[in-house]
Every structure is written in C-alpha cells, then in structure tokens.
C-alpha cells in the first residue's frame, strides 16, 4: 500500500469563551475516529476524576492542568486529522479576551476560521473581535457553527435570528465564503453526521463543509515571487548560494530578479531544494539559489520578480497590540519583518478600531488587544508588499526591547473594511 498524499487545510477555531469551540473539535476528532484508544481512555479517566460526566470532549484539546481545572482554553492546541479526502491542521484557539494573542497565533497561519457561536447568546463582543482579527489576518473563508441548538429545542427561528446578525458582520468584514450550520457539539448533531432533529436544515455537516471548502493555502499570494534571504551557503570550489523560503508566485530558473533593497538586477541560475536541483519552486519551499552576478547579498535582503515590492523606512500598517502595557506614538520597539530585524518607532497612531461598530476612532493609545492604524518608522529599509497581496512580505511583529516578548502583530497597509 502506498499512501497517497492529500490536500492540506489549515483551520483555526474562533469565537467567545464557553460557546463550545473545544467541545466541537473534540466531537469532530472523536466522531471521525482520529483519537487512539489510549487517548480516548485518558480523556474518559480525566473526565471522571473531575466529575464532569463520562467524556468531557473539551479535554481532547484542553490538555493543560490549569485548563482542565478551570474548564477554559488558555492556549492554542494543534491537532492533526486526516479523512479519506483531506488532511487537516486544526488550531483550537482560546476564546477568553485575556488570551486573544494566542488566538491570533492560531489564526495567523489558518486558511479557514471555524466560528463557534452559542445560539442563545448571539454575537458577543469577543466573537466580533475574533472575526475582525481573523479578517485582518487574511482569512477569507469561514464556517459558522451555531452551537447548542439542543438548548433551544432545535428552533429554526433562534438560528435565523443569530444568522442575520452574523451575516451582517461577515459581510462588513469582507469574508468571501460564509457557510453556516446549526449544530450541537455536545450531542454530535450536524458535526460529522447530519442531524435528525433539524429537518428544516438541508445543508452540509461541519465535516462535509470542511472537506468541501476551497479556502486556498495561506502562502498563495497575489504578488510576484519573493525570496527573503535567510542564510548564505558557501559552495565547494567557491561561489555562494542564497537560502530562504519562497513566497508569492513561483520562482523559476532563468527568472530575472532584483536584489532589494540594494536594487541590483540579476538572474536566477540554479535552484536547489531538500530533494535536489529543480527548475521551479512554489511558495512554501525552502531552497537555495545561485545568481548570475557577484553580489554581496546576505540575510535580510530579498530577491523579487516583478511586480516589485516597495522599499521603505516609513509605512502605514494595522497593528494588533498584545503588550501588557498600553502603547502610544513615539514608542521605540524592535521590528522583525521576513528575515530582517531593525529598530523601529511608532511614528503616529492615526486611529483605533471600535470593535462594536468597526469604525476607526481617534485615540491616544492602544491598550492590550486593541487594533489600531499606525505609521511605522524603521532604522533600516524594509522591502514590503501590502498584506493583502502577500502574507509573508506584508507581515511583521514588534518586539519589546527589554523583555524580548512579541507585543504586536503588524500588517502593512489598511484592510478594506477599516
């Protein structure tokens, strides 16, 4: 038997605390038989020990001691699943506002967000915040599981009421694909199998929707080919190659490229990958390339095909601030963008996003978990694309100079809904 390789979908759960994200993922994994016998036994034993019934499905992903004691998710759990048609990497994210930074961690590499809502509670502020962050991070497809349908007696009108509110928000945020599904994660209704309680619903189950989703891989982008240089490799007998991971469009042998920020034109003469020489490399492949001309390219430089990115020391960006202390204009930080680290400063704070209205309002500071529009000034020139064109060359993080903690996720440019 030769196992076929399958198409991969990365998804992250989003939504407010206690709406049932972890229970839904637990149910999905159990009902698709992704758990080994000993793992299922361990979940059952932990449930009994804590007096929470025969099988607390949230314990499948809530693996930390504190999570099980408190019955909440603190940090992202990554689970790996495969069905006959697809492989999945599932990031089960925390809903609590205090752990928004961890939700952003999980969503930053996702193609699709699985939104979980409690049918009785509607769209809470934290749900709005998560959806807004997911949209900013470039997630274009969402599947909305309207959960706890058993608690409202499978009421179609309760489902429709929530859906109206959710669809308005999803439309404002510009999601391209929105599929909503009434479910009971606890009872396993409409998670893997279609529910018999919901005769008024004729759409897919959550699993069917996940298997059918065409959410693209996150590394596919609308820019030219980009190769941020990570490392210079000296070849036997002289000469150098330049190592990094391709993003944007495909890079090919013979492609004319520009070394930035130096702005030197040259040509790709060879491409080598983990499995040897190749003529072309798609996004997500680690390669090293030879160049036609002698250059002093090094880490932090970038090779690009047209249309070329922008070389800048001052640019507009959208920030999700995760620092424990509020930040104001003038703050000095360290910035990491592709393979380059440089001193940076928030030159101007031009607005703060009001999560309730999604309007940009005036503000003098960004508090923890705030989203703001800023101008960033850097000591060294960066080579950037707009985040909407390229999730690699359009993204950066800000780092506290004292603690080295990552305190912000940054996206070059401004999302269309802001």
């Amino acid at each position, binding site marked *: 038997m030769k196992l076929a390789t399958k198409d991969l979908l990365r998804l992250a759960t989003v939504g407010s605390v206690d709406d049932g994200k972890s229970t839904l993922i637990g149910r999905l994994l159990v009902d698709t038989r992704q758990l080994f016998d000993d793992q299922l036994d361990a979940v059952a034993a932990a449930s009994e020990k804590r007096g929470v019934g025969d099988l607390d499905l949230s314990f499948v992903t809530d693996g930390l001691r504190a999570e099980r004691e408190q019955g909440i998710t603190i*940090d992202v759990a990554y689970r790996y699943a495969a069905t006959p048609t697809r492989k999945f990497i599932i990031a089960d994210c925390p809903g609590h506002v205090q752990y928004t930074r961890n939700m952003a961690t999980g969503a930053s590499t996702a193609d699709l967000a699985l939104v979980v809502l409690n049918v009785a509670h509607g769209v809470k502020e934290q749900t709005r915040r998560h959806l807004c962050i997911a949209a900013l991070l470039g997630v274009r497809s969402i599947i909305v599981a309207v959960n706890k349908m058993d608690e409202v007696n499978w009421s179609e009108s309760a489902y429709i009421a929530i859906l109206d509110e959710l669809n308005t928000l999803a439309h404002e945020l510009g999601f391209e694909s929105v599929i909503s599904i009434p479910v009971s994660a606890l009872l396993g209704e409409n998670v893997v199998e279609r529910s018999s309680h919901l005769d008024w619903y004729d759409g897919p189950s959550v699993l069917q929707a996940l298997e059918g989703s065409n959410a693209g891989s996150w590394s596919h982008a609308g820019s030219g080919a980009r190769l941020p240089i990570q490392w210079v490799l000296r*070849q036997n007998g002289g000469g150098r190659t330049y190592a990094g991971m391709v993003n944007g469009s495909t890079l090919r042998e013979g492609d004319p490229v520009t070394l930035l920020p130096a702005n030197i034109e040259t040509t790709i003469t060879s491409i080598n990958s983990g499995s040897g020489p190749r003529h072309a490399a798609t996004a*997500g492949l680690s390669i090293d390339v030879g160049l036609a001309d002698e250059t002093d390219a090094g880490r932090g430089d970038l090779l690009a095909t047209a249309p070329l990115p922008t070389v800048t020391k001052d640019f507009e960006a959208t920030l999700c601030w995760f620092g424990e202390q509020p930040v104001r204009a003038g703050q000095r930080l360290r910035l990491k963008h592709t393979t380059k680290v440089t001193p940076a400063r928030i030159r101007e704070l031009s607005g703060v996003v009001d999560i309730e209205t999604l309007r940009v309002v005036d503000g003098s500071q960004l508090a923890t978990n705030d989203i703001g529009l800023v101008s960033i000034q850097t000591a060294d020139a960066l080579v950037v694309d707009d985040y909407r064109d390229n999730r690699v060359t359009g993204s950066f993080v800000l780092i506290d100079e004292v603690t080295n*903690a990552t305190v912000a996720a940054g996206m070059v440019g401004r999302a269309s809904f802001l």
Partner: protein
Amino acid sequence: MTDHLDLLESHAIFILREVVAECEKPVLLFSGGKDSAVLLHLAAKAFAPQSLPFPVMHVDTGQNFPEVLEFRDQAVARHGARLVVASVQESIDRGRVADPGPLGPRNRLQTVTLLDAITEHGFDAAFGGARRDEDKARAKERILSFRDAFGQWDPRQQRPELWQLYQGRVNPGEHLRAFPLSDWTELDIWQYIEREEMALPAIYFAHERDVVRRDGMLLAVGPFVEPRSEEVVERLTVRFRTVGDANLTGAVLSSASTLAAIVDEIALANVSERGATRGDDKFSETAMEDRKREGYF
C-alpha cells in the same frame, strides 16, 4: 510536484536556518530515536554543503539500548558532527541528583543534566525532535519555546508566535527550545524516513527478543530489566515504536521488518506511540506537562 512531505521538510529547514541565524550558540538534542534522526538529517540538508553550524548533544541516562548508542555514533560520524555527551551518571556522581539505584528510572533526572549542560556550554537554543501529536502538553507548545533562567516552561505565558516570524531573542541565562518537527505526525515521520531511505537503529524493525510483561508493557530483558520472580520471560517477535530508556520503553508485537511495512502498520495503529510504549508518561494525567515545566525536553 510538491507534496506534503516537501512542505514539512521545507518548514523544518526554514526553522533550523532561522534559529541558527538569530541565536548565538545553538545545539541539537539527539537521542538516537527516529525523530532526532530526522532532525539531524534535515539539519544537514539545511546547511549543505557546509558542515553543521552547531554540535549535537546526547543526554545519556546510561540506560540505553546498545543498538541506539551504535546508531548515534554512526549518525554523528556520517554527518561530521561534533558530539557532546551530557551524562546523568556524572550528575549522580556529583550529587546533583539522588541516585535511584542501578535499575531505578532515570528519566526525570535527565532534566537536571540537560539544564546543567546548557548552562555549562552557554547554549542559547536547543533543537529538539518533539512533535505536537505526541502529547496533549506538546500540542500546546510553540515552535520556538522560551525557557527562563531556571530552564522552566510557563504554558500560561507563551510568546505569541505569528505567521512564520520566529523570533529567537533571549536575555543571558535564558534559552529557547526549537521544535522544527512540531507539525509532523508519526506517520509523516515514517513516510519521510521511507522516502529518504534513512538509516535507523535496528530495534525499530521486527526482531525476536526476550521480554516480560510489566505495567501493561512488554519490556526487553537485559542489563536494566531483570525478570522478577512472578514474571515469565517470553521470546516474541517485536519492534520498538519509540526509543527511550531501556527500562521505561515497551516493545510492540510486530512483524514489520521493512520501512514500507512500518508505514502500513502505523497507518492502521489504534494505540498512540507513547501510550503503547512509554512508562515515563504514565506517572500522572499531566506527566509530560509537569516535566516540561521543569525544563524537560
């Protein structure tokens, strides 16, 4: 054509290069097991044709399977790597940890040996072959996982890790653990080993061996496992799914003697690799988290 193994390989190589570029003095932790064998193989690819820009460190409990030590030395020689051995026996001799006796478990003692070696050599980053699908605490851990000046992991205060912007800056005395194989599953590891035609310790392949049944595991009779009076020694055809200390690692009944047969076996397994074979995970509900907090692998 790019398949999922190419993407996993590329991601791991990206992480290896990123950490080496950002950290002053990395080290690669090497147990001789399949995951660290894959990690070493990827590290060699990441920096070829140059030699490895960091040493390889084995935390040696002194309770190894001989086949694993033999493989360790061959692998290190093949890659021209520099081997550092951090010895648990030396930690015992120097009074850093209590002596559990000649047959006592040394798994947890490794943490002290590991942290002492990191301090002594001044390593600021340690690559490990841990995977998120192995354990529920590992499922929560970042790819670059911060350790404080005491070597501790704080699962409530992990740094955000956005996109693939791995940032590895630490203050003196602190260090990072870096896990390039985080997103690989056990099946991915075996498919990759098969594709790359990699060498592995012989104990991974089916062979006949004397075993006793203890604590729900099949333990290999040898220098670190003496049959107890009530135990019956059986000669069975077995292989090992993981490699740990000889007195804590169980064998599984298997006739899989080739990589292809192992891939087939893993694809159909209904017990997890650690659940099937690891005594060190059975101490408590959160055995892995508790050890990781102290600074374990």
